[in-house]
């Protein structure tokens, strides 16, 4: 594919908004439509858009593959740790160990779901970006 300035500029202007929207979906997942999976994929699609415009090598400078891999591992480790913590506390595997607050608040009143959404968002965003960047290879699409 021949790269043009239009693609380049559009991608650079659009990507930050995609990241922002993705982060919004992740962090407000328990209040409005969205959640970790959806938000994570939107963030990843921002990365993919950049990779398609600038080449995956350039993007990999900002998102090194090994740190994406690390982020995914850490996300999984923390989710599993939370799950096992619930088990150790006697509440059950993957139980809601941070009980919901009574009053409705503007950010979240489901702390457990909030944290899980962020962890899943991290994991999914890193994972999907990693798959695509690896598939694009060194040279880019």
């Amino acid at each position: 594919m021949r790269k043009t300035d239009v693609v380049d500029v559009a991608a650079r202007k659009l990507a930050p908004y995609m990241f922002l929207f993705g982060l919004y979906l992740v962090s407000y997942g328990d209040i409005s439509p969205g959640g970790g999976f959806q938000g994570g994929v939107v963030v990843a699609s921002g990365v993919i858009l950049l990779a398609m415009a600038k080449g995956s090598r350039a993007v990999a400078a900002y998102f090194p593959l090994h740190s994406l891999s690390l982020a995914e591992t850490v996300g999984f480790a923390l989710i599993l740790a939370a799950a096992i913590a619930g088990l150790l506390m006697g509440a059950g595997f993957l139980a809601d160990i941070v009980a919901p607050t009574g009053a409705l608040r503007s950010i979240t009143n489901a702390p457990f779901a909030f944290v899980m959404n962020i962890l899943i968002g991290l994991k999914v965003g890193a994972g999907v970006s990693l798959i695509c960047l690896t598939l694009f290879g060194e040279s880019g699409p």
Partner: protein
Amino acid sequence: MRRVVEIIAVLVVSLILALALSGEHPRQTETKEAIVENGLADTGARNLVTSVYLGYRAFDTFGETIVLLVSVSGVIYFLSKGGKS
């Protein structure tokens, strides 16, 4: 000949699925009502979808994240080695 067999196979599968999906089915609302009634109080999530996938059925979500994790790991493994033979 082979094409004909394949077309018949696709038609058969469509027929089976169409038969399975058609017909009168009384609505089962017990689970839905339980979620609508208790979702916010139980999990604190105002988005009831979240109350299901991170509250009541968090384990399934956890399973799906494992699927994604394994897929990513597999893609990296298969592509980085580039095939030994």
